[in-house]
């Protein structure tokens, strides 16, 4: 009885080893292709983050300049008015 149990275990192990060896796996080139793709995605995410920061900075700079321009136009009108009175 014990002998038959041992034999079954050994047979099962052999089947498992054979089964794992037979399943299809990606090649080394294919794995590298996937790694390169992941690296490209990370790089693109970093670039987008930098561009979004640049965009925010530009929008702030434009808003500041709009305010300065509006003040400058008011100043110009004021100077013209004062010069008339001189």
């Amino acid at each position: 009885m014990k002998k038959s149990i041992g034999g079954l275990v050994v047979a099962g192990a052999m089947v498992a080893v054979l089964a794992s060896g037979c399943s299809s796996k990606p090649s080394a080139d294919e794995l590298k292709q996937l790694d390169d793709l992941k690296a490209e995605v990370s790089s693109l995410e970093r670039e987008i983050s930098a561009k979004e920061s640049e965009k925010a900075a530009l929008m702030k700079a434009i808003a500041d300049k709009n305010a300065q321009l509006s003040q400058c136009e008011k100043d110009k009108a004021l100077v013209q008015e004062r010069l008339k009175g001189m």
Partner: protein
Amino acid sequence: MKILNRLTLVAALVLFICASAAAQEMTKEEWQKQMTEFTAKRNDLRNKLTALQAEVDRLKKEDADKAAALKKCNDDIMALVGATPEAERAFAAKLDQIDAKINELSRLSNQDLWARKGEVDDVQKMLDEVEQNKMSALPKYYNRIKEQQNRIDALKKSLEAAQIAMTYTVGTWAKDRDCLWNIAKKPKIYDNAFLWPKIWQNNREQIKNPDIIKPGQKLKIPPKADLTKEEKAAHRSYWQRKQAAAVQQ
């Protein structure tokens, strides 16, 4: 029997290792699934980056346009007042000079200010000249000049206060015990008897001898201040005459 047990153990171990290895390794299907997923993600990101780049380029152009418009506006203002950078620097330096003079005069007592009345007039002339300059219309100078005029007006008010001297009508000795010493000692006058020569020297036309003042005389009382050089000299001369008279007697 022992051999069989060992073989069983080894087989179980091999089975465990093989099963672990099979679990960690990627299958072809899994690889394909990840490739599809990451390729789609990459394409989305590329599109997003292209759109962002276009937006950033547009904003850069808008920023440059705004900067140019701002420069033109500032140049227009400077052209209106005919200011060159050198002329503007000289104008600002003149304002600094006026500020310094006003600060100096503002620290003086009314009495000292009165003695330097001419300098208040000079600083007013300087400010008048500055106000004639078109650059005085520039916002960055306009309020500063107005403030300087306010401060000069305050100086002029101090001068008026110094100019309007108090008067005191001399009472009788019997009732009021009025003499220059006692008048100077009064709290509402100087609260300091030693300043009596100031009253004497400012009323020389009606006080020839400081020991003699008459009831009803209206005396000018100049603002309280330390004795001037002239007042001290008159004081010394008074005591010398008193001593000489005492020696003669």
